[in-house]
């Protein structure tokens, strides 16, 4: 299918600012779905609130736009109702790790089969540039006018230690890598987390004097390196990208189905 066949044109124009990285994520996601040969009816997308969450409205899948931070909790109910379908949960960094942080670590712990895409632009964009748990120490935001004193999460380490069985990081600069990573994440049986570094030139870029969208994307090129590269050994400040975790563990819905098969029809004592 053509890319536009996945898009709800009725919903256009979108709300994203010029230069926003989220459109690249949407484009890349469509290509991943296309490459996997999935039908539009095979995919349920569940999102929360924020710039990233609007992706659900734009795509012609089954789409559920929920509450701030709660996408994974809604998605858990949806998945238990339709364990046969692929669930994709696009979230922002604040959505996933601040207000939704509890749901995030517990969905990972349960290893319930869904794909969480965290579009990390290190800021609350929709409300106008407040610091998020990913902004980082010393960064500027409207609510950190004297510099941020909050330390940042590392989403990969967070997801990994919480029990996610597929964990990857990529950037909007590395769109081709992103397609491959998303394909693997979607077919992975278990909780998959893909962190995408996605530029917000309007707020994070402007507040922190990082230049326009192109310059911000170039910083992803220069500031990241494949996992285990020599460059990382020479420059520990480089952010690694690639697939950090890919392992098989009992998946929640499958395990629950086993319980049903075991006890179905039993009577109350």
């Amino acid at each position, binding site marked *: 299918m053509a890319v536009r066949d996945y898009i*709800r044109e*009725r*919903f256009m124009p979108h709300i994203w600012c010029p230069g926003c990285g989220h459109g690249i994520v949407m484009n890349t996601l469509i290509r991943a779905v296309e490459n996997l040969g999935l039908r*539009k*009816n095979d995919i*349920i997308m*569940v999102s929360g609130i924020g710039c990233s969450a609007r992706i*659900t*409205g734009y795509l*012609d*899948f*089954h*789409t*559920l*736009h*929920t*509450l701030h931070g*709660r996408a994974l*909790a*809604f*998605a*858990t*109910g*949806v*998945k*238990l*109702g*339709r364990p046969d*379908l692929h669930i994709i949960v696009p979230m922002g960094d604040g959505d996933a790790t601040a207000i939704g942080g*509890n*749901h995030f670590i*517990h969905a990972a712990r349960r290893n319930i089969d869904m794909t969480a895409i965290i579009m990390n632009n290190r800021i609350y964009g929709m409300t106008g540039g407040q610091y998020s748990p990913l902004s980082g120490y010393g960064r500027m935001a409207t609510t950190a006018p004297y510099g941020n004193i909050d330390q940042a999460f590392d989403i990969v380490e967070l997801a990994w230690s919480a029990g996610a069985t597929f964990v990857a990081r990529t950037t909007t600069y590395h769109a081709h890598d992103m397609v491959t990573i998303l394909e693997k994440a979607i077919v992975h049986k278990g909780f998959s987390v893909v962190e995408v570094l996605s530029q917000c030139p309007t707020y994070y870029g402007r507040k922190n004097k990082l230049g326009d969208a192109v310059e911000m994307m170039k910083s992803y090129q220069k500031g990241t390196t494949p996992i285990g590269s020599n460059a990382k050994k020479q420059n520990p400040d480089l952010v690694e990208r690639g697939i950090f975790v890919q392992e098989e563990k009992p998946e929640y819905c499958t395990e*629950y189905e086993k*319980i*049903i098969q*075991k*006890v*179905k*029809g*039993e*009577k*109350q004592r």
Partner: protein
Amino acid sequence: MTKQILFLQGNDVCVEAAIYAGVNFFAGYPITPATEIVERLAEQLPRKGGKFIQMEDEIASMCAIIGASLTGMKSMTATSGPGFSLKQEAIGYAVMAEIPCVIVNVQRGGPSTGMPTCVSQGDVMQARWGTHGDHAIITMTASNHQDVFATTVEAFNLAETYRTPVILLFDEVIGHMRERLIMPEPGEIPLIERLRTSVKEGTDYHPYLPRDDGRLPMSDFGGVHRFNVTGLVHDMWGFPSNNPNIAHGLMRHLVDKIENHVSEIAKVKEYYLDDADGILISYGSPARSARHVVENRRKRGIRLGLLELQTLWPFPAEKVRDLCSKAKYILVVELNMGQIMQEVKKAVEDPGKVFLANKIDGTFISPTDIRNIIRLIQGKGV
């Protein structure tokens, strides 16, 4: 065939009724005094092929039942005061997106952590207005186990009929008390399934275009129709909109679909009202004490009646006004500071004849407490 008789806690009765009604999804979090509901469903649901999940918190439980209901499952959660507070945002989502679901609140003393093992009815107004924004909601209650059963089944029926969250406002006394339940036979209480769209695959389906009667046929999420669901104000496609006409139409629809059907939704029980000089109005466990007083007074020829409310929201104001029109005094018996009394005052012609018999100390109101207040109203002193 003789009917099965059980001796159960109210919380267990609620579970039996939910299963009778066809619940096949439950998400919850442990909380006193509702935990027995969570435990019993964890055991029962997989046996019936349904699904149970203990979520990471109360918020997640509420969100999960909405997600599951969208896919076509009959969904329920259960909690008490603090958990009910946490669920409010998502209850509003279910109102806005019109997702059928049942929320049980076994009330305990509040505010805050309050008195976890003690009885209260302090959440009546929270059930009505706990979530933000104008909206309508259905809230029901019961005073005995046979009614807990019937009301729980009715809650599912109303949720599916009106595509709305329905709140079951029980209380600690009802939840933990044990008494007889005569188990209704399958089919004895009718079950209502949600209205599903007849629009075929490939034809445009408008998920949020109400029929002339205000009802909204659903398509199971993940099925043949792809559509958008949102908590934002939305058009007939389920797409967000800031159009004032669309916003106005949606708000009217959400409120009218319930408020225009008060007479069908709201249920009361009437005891000795025809000739009553004094009328007790009560609901939930205190209605038992009120009934005790009325039965005893009637034996002595005193013309006392009881109006038991089974539906709190939408409040059956017209019915209350009609039934109380001849009473010399009306005494509302409840375990809060007069939350339903205020509604009764609004409903009747002379609010000056409405009084309150209440308890707010975590203990249950006794027939003696009620009798003393009646004496005070009559100028006889305690």
